[in-house]
């Protein structure tokens, strides 16, 4: 009798519970429909994303490709402090040039802007890293007037 009365008086409370359960069920259905089937196969991401990344056009030719034609510059560079700076770090992405050197002739970098990206004086850089206050150091002269970029000795 008491139990029956309890059920009768609380019958209306079942309705918000049902709404909640229905919303959760709808969420689970939508979730299973939206999430790609292979999600989580390699980690917390969609494996198809890897294929999408692979479809991007290749911009950088890579060190080995550059050296195939420009071995003279590579030899000079290998002897100096820029030995471990890749060609395209300064010259920019040149995959198109490597594919068709005649059709895509790269522009030489603007040294006034390029060198100071790494060598501008900055308190945050290690003390033994070569750095200068460019405005005072060169008075506007291009860096390669004195320095040889591929092997930057004086």
């Amino acid at each position, binding site marked *: 009798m008491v139990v029956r009365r309890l059920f009768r008086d609380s019958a*209306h409370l079942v309705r918000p519970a049902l709404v*909640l359960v229905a919303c959760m069920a709808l969420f689970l259905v939508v979730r299973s429909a939206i*999430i790609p089937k292979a999600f989580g196969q390699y980690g917390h991401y969609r494996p198809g994303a890897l294929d999408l990344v692979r479809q991007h056009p290749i911009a950088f030719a890579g060190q080995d490709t550059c050296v195939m034609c420009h071995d003279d510059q590579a030899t000079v560079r290998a002897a100096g402090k820029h030995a471990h700076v890749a060609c395209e770090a300064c010259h920019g992405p040149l995959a198109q040039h490597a594919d068709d050197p005649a059709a895509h002739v790269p522009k030489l970098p603007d040294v006034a802007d390029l060198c100071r990206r790494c060598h501008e004086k900055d*308190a*945050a850089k290690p003390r033994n890293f070569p750095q200068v206050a460019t405005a005072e150091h060169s008075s506007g002269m291009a860096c390669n007037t004195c320095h040889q970029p591929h092997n930057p000795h004086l």
Partner: protein
Amino acid sequence: MIPGVDGFMYPNEVELQWSVLIVLYPYITGLVAGAFILASLERVFNVAAVRPTYRLALLTALAFLLVAPLPLQLHLGHPERSLEMYLTPHTSSAMAMFGFVYLWYLTVVLLLEIWLEYRTEIVGLAQSTRGLKRWIYRALTLGSYDVSPAARRMDEKVGYAVTVIGVPSAFLLHGYVGFIFGSVKANPWWSTPLMPVVFLFSAMVSGIAAVMVLYVVCMKLRKTAIDMRCLDTIARYLFYTFVIDFTLEMLDLIHRTYESDESFRSLDFMVHTRLLFSHVILQIFLGTLVPLFLLAANQLWRYTEGTRKAMYMTAGALTLVGIFAMRWNVVIGGQLFSKSFLGYTSYKMQLASREGLVAAVLLMILPFVIFFVLVKLLPPWQGGKAHEA
């Protein structure tokens, strides 16, 4: 020299990544949590005097809760991506877990409590209104028209249980916001385990102040007498919470000063220069000490009704400004100094951009629009008798 930068900044520190919208987010969430805590005073802690603000506090909490995620979504730029945290949540992401806390708080706590509280009125209005309103109220009944005394007693019991669950949920909701900042270990301005606790108490302070101000404004607009016993009680609880909040903030300050780690000189300099106005003047003096003094004076001496109202309103408004300044100082202040401790940048708020002043003002107006609609739909004025404990 970069304009607005003094000393040395790392390149990625010059421009602030978190704008005024990220200031609004903890502010709005805090108002939700605080308003709910005030509502729980009557329901759980048997403070019958604040009954006139019970429904008002619930509707305030709901209006602000619905707006709480919007600043984040606007900041994201791709608001649709925020749903990913529900679809593929990562358990190591505090943000993703917050999404579930938010949903829990919205559906299981706030909406359910409001529904239980208003059921008699909803059923009555579903039968007495016409047209679209009738359909809205009929939908809100969820098909149940049983408002017998026995059913209402059951509502009371369940409502009480929901509020009891709601109090730690409100703590969780806002404690989380403090956690998000407190857990950024690379930032000494944020990284303190006190952050969630400070955020929680400042949330309670702002929410109680907001409901107090809203109550007085609503009563003025409706040309209805203000229940001074209720107002005095809210002001008293605001004072108690504020004392705890201020003590915690001072504890944090004293601890930082005594500890004086490698970041201290830099942070100290920032507080005395770039944050002088927003931190020392707005947050500590105008937003904390003045309202605390006004509230404390009312605990010590008796004033006339008119004077008390003016003092409470001034204290409430200043408190809301002060807590906003606190959020500003945390979010913006934490990005103004370099992690090298060698330089400072500045924040220039944009005007009419996605994260500018206009967007922020509109986002602050929106909860009041929602509140207005909610009050029209579910009038909080005929509050009825106090809940049975």
